[in-house]
């Protein structure tokens, strides 16, 4: 594979990862709402949330892997393991590493949740709300120096969707429970 192709694959999978990750966050909020979503029953919302997060992980893996393999790309192993430690654009790259590591922690604890118990699982899961914005910043910061329009648009769409979901999450009607109507 030519290094150009590797580079485009790396960038492309990065964008896909961000989009998938944003959908996962939205689905996580939808799961918490305990309501069906666009015709999907509740258990399916959970299932798609889980499936999409694994898919996002796959694309994240390709994103990071291609950059490690690319001889021209300035990604070193240290960048993948330790945030903000590498020599090339340490801040923006470091954000990516941080987001990725938090996401991996969230996913691994979720796969092991029956073993580690609810409290530990939930504590780590909150890290998703840190990981996602960090990933967005990473994408905007490292997404080539000329910042193409489509990257901006996609990012704006993801951010808009997640912000709308979070506002819904914080609204008073979110946790509403169906209740027995008094007198018939």
């Amino acid at each position, binding site marked *: 594979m030519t290094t150009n192709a590797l580079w485009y694959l790396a960038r492309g999978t990065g964008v896909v990862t961000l989009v998938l990750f944003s959908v996962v966050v939205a689905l996580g909020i939808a799961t918490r709402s*305990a309501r069906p979503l666009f015709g999907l029953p509740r*258990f399916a919302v*959970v299932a798609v949330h889980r499936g999409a997060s694994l898919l996002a992980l796959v694309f994240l893996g390709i994103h990071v892997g291609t950059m490690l393999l690319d001889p021209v790309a300035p990604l070193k192993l240290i960048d993948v393991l330790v945030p903000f430690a590498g020599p090339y654009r340490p801040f923006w790259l470091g954000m990516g590493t941080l987001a990725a590591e938090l996401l991996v922690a969230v996913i691994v604890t979720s796969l092991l949740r*029956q073993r580690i118990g609810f409290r530990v699982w939930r504590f780590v899961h909150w890290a998703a709300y840190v990981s996602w914005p960090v990933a967005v910043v990473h994408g905007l910061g490292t997404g080539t120096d000329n910042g193409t329009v489509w990257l901006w648009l996609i990012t704006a769409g993801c951010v808009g969707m997640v912000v709308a979901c979070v506002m819904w999450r914080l609204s008073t009607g979110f946790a509403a*429970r169906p209740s027995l109507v008094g007198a018939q």
Partner: protein
Amino acid sequence: MRLHIDWTACDGRGACVELMPEVLDQDPWGYPIPKDGTRQPTVPPETMPYARKAVAYCPRLALRLLPPAA
């Protein structure tokens, strides 16, 4: 196998009721009602795959599967 509901964890999210309608009904506030009236309803063998899914998917980890009563 029997289904054990940790009521202190259950929040009436409803995924289990969807996956096991033969075993569970739902009350007006979203919480599961064992159809056989027992505290730990028996899960018939054909429903077991769905029971396992329900246990895995419960957002509050409120479900466990127990061996049949001795």
